[in-house]
């Protein structure tokens, strides 16, 4: 009787909540989210994901039982104003011991895999791992491969099936390296090296971004992990090694390595880019030197200089995004960016240099050739 019509009417009042919940749950499958943490694609990511799944299961069980008991009590023990005083219970030692011990046991069930997971994730990768140095910058990411002598920015190429050992620091403030498909976050510090490792399981492009507030453009500090089959990665690294300083090789890259890069990377060449012989290219090259771009950006991937303020542009023409995930990398956006970085990404360290539209066009031609 107590659970009769009033109860139904009360549940009816919850209808809007249930509707919204249904709506929310419909948007719930991780496949809608390219940056999801719920579909890990590395051994490292799976360790955390397994524990999270275990914990979530327990949480759901506890949630259903306790909220259920609460709802039951709410409906069952409804009193009327004239009712006699209910039995004055002050406590019950047995019950209290039981509901102290049961949560403790559940926590123990979570604690055991947790401690195992802590030690697994903190393990040191073996000597055959590919080392990558990651340097956080306001607001972009620098990736250096010491064993390959290669440097790049914002797109981290890694081979599938080989452990990658990340050694991280920052050039300025604290950032946090987070690629959810690959694994959890790790903060980067100016005065200590932090580490993370993972072995990518599938080729693909995985978006990630900075996860520690790092100033005005924290929201625009994205990067991508490009997991490639070993031979593709090999081709990419060989190509990157060919992007040398002018003293060692004719700058920029010879035409054939552009093709190698296009084949190796998953990025298709958008336009047939003008080569070094093109007059537009030559103008762009000159502008790159005279407008001051060269002061912050290196065009050399092999044995690149350290401590540059801006991202390495040796292969900028082939990247998917520019300005750390802010804009799709097409000619229009690139020109727009060169002319007005402060309008697009307020506070970015790249100043507006008064580049005119026709100058921007030449610079785009020049940069686009850097594949």
């Amino acid at each position: 009787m107590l659970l009769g019509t009033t109860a139904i009417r009360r549940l009816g009042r919850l209808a809007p909540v249930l509707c919204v919940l249904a709506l929310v749950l419909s948007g719930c499958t991780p496949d809608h989210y390219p940056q999801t943490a719920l579909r890990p694609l590395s051994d490292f990511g799976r360790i955390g994901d397994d524990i999270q799944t275990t914990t979530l299961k327990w949480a759901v069980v506890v949630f259903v039982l306790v909220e259920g008991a609460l709802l039951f009590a709410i409906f069952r023990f409804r009193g009327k104003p004239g009712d006699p005083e209910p039995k004055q219970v002050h406590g019950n030692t047995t019950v209290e011991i039981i509901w102290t011990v049961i949560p403790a046991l559940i926590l123990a069930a979570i604690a055991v895999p947790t401690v195992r997971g802590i030690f697994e994730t903190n393990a040191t990768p073996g000597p055959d791992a590919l080392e990558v140095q990651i340097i956080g910058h306001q607001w972009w990411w620098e990736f250096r491969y010491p064993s390959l002598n290669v440097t790049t920015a914002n797109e981290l190429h890694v081979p599938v099936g080989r452990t990658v050992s990340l050694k991280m620091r920052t050039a300025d403030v604290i950032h946090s390296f987070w690629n959810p498909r690959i694994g959890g976050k790790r903060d980067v510090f100016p005065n200590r090296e932090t580490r993370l490792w993972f072995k990518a399981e599938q080729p693909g492009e995985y978006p990630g971004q900075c996860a520690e507030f790092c100033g005005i453009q924290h929201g625009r500090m994205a990067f991508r992990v490009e997991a490639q089959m070993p031979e593709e990665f090999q081709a990419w690294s060989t190509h990157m090694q060919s992007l040398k300083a002018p003293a060692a090789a004719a700058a920029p890259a010879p035409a054939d390595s552009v093709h190698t890069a296009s084949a190796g990377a998953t990025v298709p060449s958008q336009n047939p880019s003008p080569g070094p012989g093109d007059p537009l290219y030559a103008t762009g090259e000159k502008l790159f030197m005279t407008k001051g771009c060269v002061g912050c950006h290196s065009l050399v991937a092999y044995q690149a200089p350290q401590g540059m303020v801006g991202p390495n542009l040796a292969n900028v023409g082939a990247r998917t995004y520019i300005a750390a995930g802010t804009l799709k990398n097409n000619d229009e956006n690139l020109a727009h960016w060169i002319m007005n970085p402060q309008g697009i990404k307020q506070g970015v360290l790249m100043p507006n240099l008064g580049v005119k539209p026709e100058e921007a066009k030449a610079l785009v031609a020049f940069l686009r050739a850097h594949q």
Partner: protein
Amino acid sequence: MATSAIDQQRAHAAAAHGDKTGLWSWLTTVDHKRIGILYGSTAFIFFLMGGIEALLLRIQLGSPDNTFLSPETYNQLFTMHGTTMIFLGIMPLSAAFFNFMIPLQIGARDVAFPRLNAFSYWVFLAGGLFLNASWIVGAAPDTGWFGYANLTSRQFSPGMHVDFWMLGLQILGIASLAAAVNFFVTIVNMRAPGMRLMRMPMFTWMSFITQVLLLLAFPVITVALVLLMFDRFFGTHFYVPSGGGDPLLWQHFFWIFGHPEVYILILPAFGIVSEVLPVFSRKPLFGYAAMVFSGVFIAFLGFGVWAHHMFATGMGPIADTFFSLSTMLIAIPTGVKIFNWLGTVWGGSVQYKTPMYFALGFIAMFIIGGLSGVMHASPPADLQQTDSYFVVAHFHYVMFGGSIFGLVAGAYYWWPKMSGHVLDDTLGKLHFWLMLIGFNVTFFPMHILGLNGMPRRVYTYPAGLGFETLNRIETVGSFILALSFAVFLYNIFKTSRGPRNAPADPWNGATLEWSIPSPPQEWNFAEVPVVHSRDALWEVKRERGGKLPEPPHVSGAGIHLPNPSYWPLVTAIGVLMTIAGVLAFPHIGPWVSIVGGLVLLFGVFKWAFEPAG
């Protein structure tokens, strides 16, 4: 109830103590009830400001690549939203109830140090105004409420943004510490005869524990902020790596303060709910002793879990294990509390009035926040969750679903006692349903977004990551939430125009505040009560067949009360000037500080030699 007797008493009181109205009486008041009202109304205004800041944030995030707010403004707004809600909203709203209710619950005529109490309020007000003055000069804090070094160094944060934040928190810290000393001493020393520790009402108990947390946690942030001030103004390198300092040191300091701070924010709400549930279930709190000791245990453990905010910093497996297990341990006393609340309702004869709605809503929402908390106690999983919207969801379920639901329950519960008006029950329930729905629509989807890769503190997100739909829903939810508070305001407005006729004991209360008129006379208790048991008032009423004893006819003459004083206000202005002067260092600032210091000293001197009445 003997309304006429009460009216008579009021008339006598007015004659005996002089009619105390007008601005001057509020500026010089040392009455804990008036100070409680000042705290409550000031904090509620700040709370609404923090809410408006949140709505602006939600509009910006309502669609991808939005340009409604500039990144600069967004960062200022989220920093001020967090800082405001914690230091100017929830903490002083709790303080409003500490002020008004603790002396009444323990049968005292005032707090131990009435003028120090006024001083706390004025310093709190000064701190809140100082922080928000940053908007006027266009230098609102913009590095988050956590202010992580080395982003807060001069190099990366030139301008006054961080200075306003750092100095504002320093001012507010003084207010909190002074108040904590006051309430600690009040509860230890001022209890009515027979009010043993284990007979204290649970709200007073949880408030007592909160004062201990305040006393132990605030000195840590004070020191951390002084070091930051030295770094920014005097060229030291405590957090600056180029000079051998360590930005990680700030994180340890901050969270050694910051985690107990979480319990400072939630324990008063625990106390309120532990008062409301028994009264409206018409049976005593289940497992009183377990409730006390679980509160003590939570507070103790709260000092040993701080680095669970720092799992992503790579502390190594030993530290990770320690902080992970200590964090999980906290779930046990927290669970005990939830089960005891359930046990209180279980078998009761539940009266569904507005305060009970909010108290039950508190339990339902707090369970969710507690469970997601256990989820990120596990470092390998937390590496994905930390600094994502999953954490934003978690702490809003604790801070809003917990603290705010609890505080609103307290507001409806004690409103008659504080104002003499009973808030409208129908409007109250409308407020509840709008708040419950708005809250869940706003914050539940954040769990999903966080686990699917949306990081915190981003001023926008690109289209194509799948974040659009749920963010839009959240923005709608935030406006439902805002609407619920509009209903609350309307309720206050409407009922305050009605007659001031709240009965002394509208809910059949168990604690001493319900034994005296609503609102109480200035001296609270005509005769100091003698306490023989827990739920003292229930005991008295049972002996008298369910009726409150007739209030004794007392004119108030001869009852010793402290004199009003404006020296707390003068001293507080001195504190404000001393600290605010640092802003303008090294130009005019030192002079402002010196003059402020002199005002402070003069105020303290006059205060010390003022006749206490």
